[in-house]
């Protein structure tokens, strides 16, 4: 047995910025000298694109479809600064069972026993966060990830997805599953956005790990097929990602969150809607709109 590997899962609603954030964390950790693997667990299979100049890699499930036996080199590819990239992949939209696909892919990688061989320090699972079935919960089961982070903006739908994830974590918290390291607040520019997220984490007994502003630097980097850490290493945004990466890897104790009941969540959202409406119509409008 080698050293203990830090295994982390990052969840969140589709399109919220999981892959962008995860890839920047991976890139930043690699620059700090960690050996990192990023494992995309989204049938979209685009998690690692910005670590590999915008290219797609063959997925575990596509490889498995062609062959009975999969070798590590068939599915593990080096990206920016030596970050190992893996994509679980999935069936074509509308057919098969994507959830089972995630189980198969994660188990297969585990069976290949490459984590020790590659002397990894950190494995990060980037997982589609609308945990629609058992398969998408596999990365947070006992023996896989120890810490879960969720990426959320101040949008109600993103918070709703985060709250659902908290429910899943709580359910298995007594049976050895992963616990919550915190919430990564993405696309936070307006002051009220920060307030909303802060209020939510307080209610659910967790913390905000980092506030990440929405930034055009991210878009520019993405258009070059790169992470912000790679394309604009000296930018303010890259510094934020580096800070986040350090906090993520330093997390040793995660906690059981206290998710809100659906009625509580609705009430909570309604209260914020009223306040936002007041902002819209009131004189504070100018500061609130700062994008």
């Amino acid at each position, binding site marked *: 047995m080698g050293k203990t590997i830090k295994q982390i899962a990052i969840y969140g609603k589709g399109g919220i910025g999981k892959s962008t954030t995860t890839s920047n964390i991976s890139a930043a950790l690699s620059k700090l000298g960690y050996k990192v693997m990023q494992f995309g667990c989204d049938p979209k299979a685009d998690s690692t694109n910005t670590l590999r100049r915008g290219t797609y890699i063959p997925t575990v499930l596509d490889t498995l479809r062609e062959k009975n036996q999969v070798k590590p080199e068939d599915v593990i590819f080096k990206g920016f600064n030596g970050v190992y990239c893996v994509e679980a992949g999935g069936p074509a939209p509308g057919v098969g*069972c994507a*959830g089972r696909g995630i*189980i198969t892919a994660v188990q297969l990688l585990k069976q290949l026993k490459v984590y020790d061989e590659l002397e990894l320090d950190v494995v990060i699972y980037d997982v589609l966060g609308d945990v629609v079935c*058992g*398969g998408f919960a596999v990365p947070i*089961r006992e023996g896989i990830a120890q810490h879960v982070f969720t990426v959320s903006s101040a949008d109600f739908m993103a918070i709703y997805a985060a709250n659902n994830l908290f429910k899943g974590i709580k359910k*298995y918290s*007594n*049976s050895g*599953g992963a616990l919550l390291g915190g919430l990564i607040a993405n696309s936070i520019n307006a002051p009220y956005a920060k307030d909303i997220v802060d209020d939510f984490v307080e209610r659910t007994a967790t913390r905000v790990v980092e506030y990440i502003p929405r930034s055009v630097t991210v878009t520019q980097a993405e258009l070059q097929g790169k992470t912000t850490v790679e394309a604009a290493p000296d930018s303010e945004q890259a510094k934020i990602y580096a800070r986040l990466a350090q906090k993520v890897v330093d997390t040793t104790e995660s906690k059981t969150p206290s998710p809100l009941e659906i009625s509580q969540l609705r009430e909570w959202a309604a209260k914020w809607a009223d306040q936002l409406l007041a902002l819209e119509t009131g004189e504070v409008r100018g500061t609130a709109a700062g994008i």
Partner: protein
Amino acid sequence: MANLTERPRHTCALGGAIATASALPGTIPVLHAPPGCASNTTWTQAGGCGLQLGGYCGGLSMPGTNMQEREVVFGGSERLQELIKNAQTVMEGDLYFVLTSCVAEVIGDDIGAIVKPFQDEGIPVIYAETGGFKGNSYTGYDLTLQSLWENFIPAAAERVPEKVNLWGIPPFFDAFWRGNLEGLRQLLRRLGLTVNTFFTAEDTLAGIREAGSASLNILVSDGYGTGAAELSRQKHGIPYVVSPLPIGPAASDEFLRSVGAALGLDRQRVETVIGEENRRYYRYLDTFVDCYNDMDLQRYAAVAGDANYAPAVTRFLADDLGWLPEVVAVSDVLTEEQERAIRQRLEKLSSGLRPKVYFTPDTSEIRRCVKEHWTTEAGAKYANKLTPAFVVGSSLERELAKDLQAGHLSVSFPVSNRAILDRGYTGYRGGLRLIEDLIGVIAVNR
């Protein structure tokens, strides 16, 4: 490989797992499955395991979650939790072994999380992920053993020098499992070894729990249980030797020598046992050879069987009994490596015979391959008619035997035309037993 297998000789992985778990001492299999899994595998066993079936809380009395659409949609965790709880109140077991079906694994129920609270309370529950789609009955056997090594057998602080574990003979799917395990255990004990065999009447859960202190794992199979051997090597640091299933003196001599070498036993001690066993074996043959010769009891043989039996029986017939195996059909789907291992074994028969070897799980295909060989040989100029013939296979070779007007003995799964209790074919004594059974078929109408 063909797209279709006619009359295959396997169940799904769950079938093998059920058979394996229910063969463990004091163990209650707990099925997380929709209706049908238990009964399908039970009736398969009824049709192929020499009239051995069930046992306490096995077969149709095995507890199961009986998953319905409701469990598929909403998850089956609660149902399984309830079942584990209830099974303990109505079924007396020392170990509850949860086995998952395809359905449970597709919806992704987290079995580890369900059993953990029970384990934390000190209740002996373990589980194996044995969704049918993982493979055939032999895969299920391996997965169940892997779970035992992973979840039940702790790594021991110290190795006991002359203690070994033996496996590679899958319960029920080798209908002679108990006799075969006992036969080899008896031999190994003659070397002075302590032997854990998991599944015989003498084995206990307490003994199995201490399997981690063994110095060697002995796998008598080129294909079954390899994963468990690998796992135990990695997790418990126990090395393993692989041997073909030893039937009769030639293979048993080799078996004992390879175990002796792996354990670094005194060679003289091993040779003494081999000498004594051979003496005994041939003393029995002394009074048989005259009849064997005078009554023309030599046969051309076709052997069809699983990866254990096909090569083992062939070698016995060719190198010990003096029969003439012409065709061997191995009825398993194997990896290239496993196929190569079996081929190599059959290429170095000391009798110098070189039977044709086929790999196919399809009963009609086996029949076709054998018949083709028989007719080509018989039709050739200066033809050797290949009669009289004998088919050693499974019950599915009955038609083939009829085609060749040959004698027929079922040895490999399915064995539906024999009742098997403690009979076994392993070791020197097993060889004698096999001779009795083979010749018994020929002599039956005298």
